[in-house]
């Protein structure tokens, strides 16, 4: 089955963003990071564990009516480093890009150190510096190397 056939399992979108080549099983984490929970009323399609030549299995997310900026999608590199971003206008791909590793992510991950000030009721977002082999809390220095999705902040 070609990639195109797979795409047809979920309908094409007219305007919006298609996030492709998400590591299999991470689609819901992608939506959580982007803060997309369906409450805005936009159509969101999710396809999980589709066969992929490159990844073995991949997830695909299509968000109707919303063009995600590079800053918004770069944070996805933490859990879906191979993801590709397609901006769609009038059913055509007008922009194609990849996620790039940001130097800092804010308000995305929860610090696992329960004694970190960012876990308190203070007017501050969590902030992690992104390194080659993990992320590090800029407030308490705690390093997270493994299982980043488990640390995604609940909305």
């Amino acid at each position: 089955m070609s990639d195109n056939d797979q795409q047809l399992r979920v309908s094409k979108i007219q305007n919006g963003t298609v996030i492709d080549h998400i590591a299999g099983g991470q689609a819901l984490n992608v939506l959580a990071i982007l803060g997309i929970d369906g409450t805005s009323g936009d159509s969101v399609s999710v396809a999980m564990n589709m066969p992929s030549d490159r990844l073995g299995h991949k997830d695909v997310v299509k968000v109707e009516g919303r063009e995600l900026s590079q800053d918004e999608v770069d944070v996805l590199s933490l859990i879906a480093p191979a993801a590709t971003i397609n901006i769609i206008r009038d059913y055509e791909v007008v922009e194609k890009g990849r996620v790039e590793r940001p130097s800092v992510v804010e308000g995305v991950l929860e610090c696992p150190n329960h004694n970190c000030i960012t876990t308190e009721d203070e007017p501050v977002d969590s902030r992690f510096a992104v390194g080659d082999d993990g992320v590090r809390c800029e407030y308490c220095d705690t390093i997270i190397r493994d299982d980043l999705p488990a640390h995604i902040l609940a909305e």
Partner: protein
Amino acid sequence: MRHDHIISAKQLSRGDIETVLDHAADIAADPGAFADRHSDTLLGLLFFEPSTRTKMSFTTAMKRLGGDIVDMGSVESSSVKKGESLADTVRVVEGYTDALVLRHPMEGSAKMASEFVDVPLVNAGDGAGQHPTQTLLDLYTIRENAGFDDLTIGIMGDLKYGRTVHSLAHALTTVDARQHFISPESLQLPRSVRYDLHEAGAGIREHTELDEILPELDVLYVTRIQAERFPDEGEYREVAGQYQIDAATLDAAKDDLTVMHPLPRVDEIAHDVDETTHAQYFQQAHNGVPVRMALLDLMLGGDQ
């Protein structure tokens, strides 16, 4: 020095450290010359945790510079008890004072607080995080007694939760000290500190017993192992007992070994050590005043 806030020993370069220590030495040599230096200055003290030495030496330092302090008092008697956030508290108090000193039980509190104020803020201890002014007075004591050249130091006790250890270990990388860490396995350095020391190219070695390394040391820095770090009293007593020193222990050390401790001690250094020439922990505590005077003077524009 061009730091608005002093949050972590990690922000201090070798040059910064030498600047503060040189200035502290000048002040210690002639404190009277600095007595009216900051006569219009009010220092705000925000201590969310108990403190004796740090709070008293900041108070003394500010008063010896001619200024005064405004003290929030204990948490029980303040608006924090009513649920005020730290960010709000510091924004209010900065309007009363020219600089702030903060101690707080949570890691990262000083960094966060510094993002909400324009006056200089000094971290006087944030949970198990950092305690940079303790580090500066430790470094001052080390430089006075052993010097920074070809320095071999042993740091013993609770290396996992001891914030003085985390700050000091990082600062010692700027003087290329050989660092030996002596602790029970359950209280070894945390991953983040180890990572930083590795990144800084530090030569560090870890031990579970002091004996194997004691004869090589120029400085032995002892910290307290706290009972609450252990599941039960029996295990605490057994482990802590292995990291106590007395005068007889030091027979195996160099004659000019300097023994330091951030205090308070409980029983990790026996009282018979006090009478030896090795003991420098009381002088170390005294050094907190000139060092904090130097830091405040530099932060408040004394070098201009």
